[in-house]
């Protein structure tokens, strides 16, 4: 047993901040964007796919991973840290099944991951995990959940959230655009997730990866064709909106609110 050489790396600053944790949050801001949206019957995860080197196999870069049949996780930040955290979370999901004879609730596994992240901010000569996570899934009673954790070890539940590069921009977009229609319709939830990603990512199915989970079903990654279809629909909507704006300007009245409300009635589909 080593002596008391457990000098903490994360110590308080004079004005009450934990610098290491804040630096870890900076590392997260450098990671590629991830977006999560929760609907009534669906949870959607979308991540920005960074361009890979020419000789690199595309398949080895997986930012969305399953923790159990009913839980999935996306992260932003240090990939290696995520791998370790994911491994521990997967073990905990099975351990819970063994000891309690029930699948984990999303809150439970989020709390476990957050506890783990917090532990590394207190003593023992370890640095914090440099990642934020988005955890989605369905509880045993069927309710959909979306949680997010950050390097300080706090977690919150969200209706829609974004982490990583330009997360603030994307989150503001989500706040503007998340409506009742989004919540009710699976199609709208997926579309909102893609729209939000396209705010900061170049348009095109090869730059985004979308995964969808329905109640009592496994996580499904949308194929490139499916994503293209959504993107085409979104671009058409944007065109119609741009047209309406131009017409409104020509007429001379400054109304744009009517355009967006007619848009939702035109394009919302029943699932």
């Amino acid at each position: 047993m080593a002596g008391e050489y457990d000098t903490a790396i994360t110590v308080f600053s004079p004005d009450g901040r934990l610098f290491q944790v804040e630096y870890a949050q900076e590392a997260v801001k450098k990671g590629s964007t991830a977006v999560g949206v929760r609907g009534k019957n669906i949870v959607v995860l979308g991540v920005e796919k960074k361009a890979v080197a020419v000789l690199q196999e595309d398949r080895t870069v997986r930012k969305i991973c399953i923790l159990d049949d009913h839980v999935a996780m996306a992260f932003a930040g240090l990939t290696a840290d995520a791998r370790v955290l994911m491994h521990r979370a997967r073990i905990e999901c099975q351990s819970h099944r063994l000891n309690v004879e029930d699948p984990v609730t999303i809150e439970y596994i989020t709390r476990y991951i957050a506890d783990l992240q917090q532990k590394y901010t207190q003593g023992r000569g370890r640095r914090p995990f440099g990642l934020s996570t988005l955890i989605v899934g369905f509880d045993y009673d069927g309710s959909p959940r979306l949680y997010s954790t950050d390097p300080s070890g706090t977690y919150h539940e969200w209706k829609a959230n974004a982490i990583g590069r330009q997360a603030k921009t994307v989150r503001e977009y989500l706040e503007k655009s998340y409506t009742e229609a989004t919540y009710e319709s699976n199609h709208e939830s997926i579309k909102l997730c893609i729209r939000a990603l396209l705010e900061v990512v170049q348009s095109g199915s090869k730059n985004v990866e979308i995964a969808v989970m329905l109640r009592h079903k496994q996580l499904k990654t949308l194929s490139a064709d499916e994503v293209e279809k959504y993107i085409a629909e979104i671009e058409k909507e944007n065109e119609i909106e741009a047209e309406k704006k131009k017409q409104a300007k020509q007429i001379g009245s400054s109304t744009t609110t009517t355009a967006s409300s007619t848009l939702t009635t035109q394009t919302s589909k029943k699932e």
Partner: protein
Amino acid sequence: MALASVLGFKSNETFNRSLQCEKTDANIDEICPKLNIENIAQFITLPPYADPAKYLKMVNESVDRVRIQFLKGTTTLAFKFRNGVIVAVDSRATAGGFIASGEVKKVIEINPYLLGTMAGGAADCAFWERVLARHCRIYELRNKEKISVAAASKILVNMIFEYRGMGLSMGTMIVGWDKRGPGLYMVSDDGERITDNMFSVGSGSIYAYSILDASYKYEMSTNDAIDLARRAIVHAAHRDAASGNIVRIYHMKETGWEKIEEKDTNDYMYQYREDKTMNF
């Protein structure tokens, strides 16, 4: 630990020092089960002598001159039916041929929606079920929902399994009502945990089973179920020397458990003798 300080228990140090002695007896590994962890003393509190497993095996079975009779002298039963679970127990405690007490509470109220029965070593059952109550409460606070009967019984059996082969004597039934409906698990000192619709544990269980098996139906009404449980304990108390005195009956409902009655078994037996309309 609060419990340790209440008992005046100072530390593990003096106790566990004895465990550093080398094992010299060649037959030890045959007689005693191996402990899995090297420094098991760090994790659990062991009795204050070397090789507890070997010593306690000696007093449990008639290996040597000493024998402490941990007879599971009791009758306890529980069964599920349409409206929940009925739990019925006797109240006699015996040590060999000596009736130590006629008023033992063999149903342990873990919390308002979980019950545990006692058979075997009374101290073992009472203590471990209190520890279980603590775990259940912490689970409830952390997860904002009541613990399931499956999880509670699993916690208990995992605790017991750590002491396997060291002389625990428990045959307990964990009864409760959770989001999956009524739950009934039997947990015993060898680490067994099984679930079924009906269990009876103890030296009088053979008599109780015969009464239960003759008339048990899942669709019984509550009154019939209570009557059946009562009869089973009374008949077991009548024939088994190690069971008797008072019969206690509890009913586990969706809203929690309810104590139905505690009456003398002999009085009931006289009543049944009078009642010539009983048919089996």
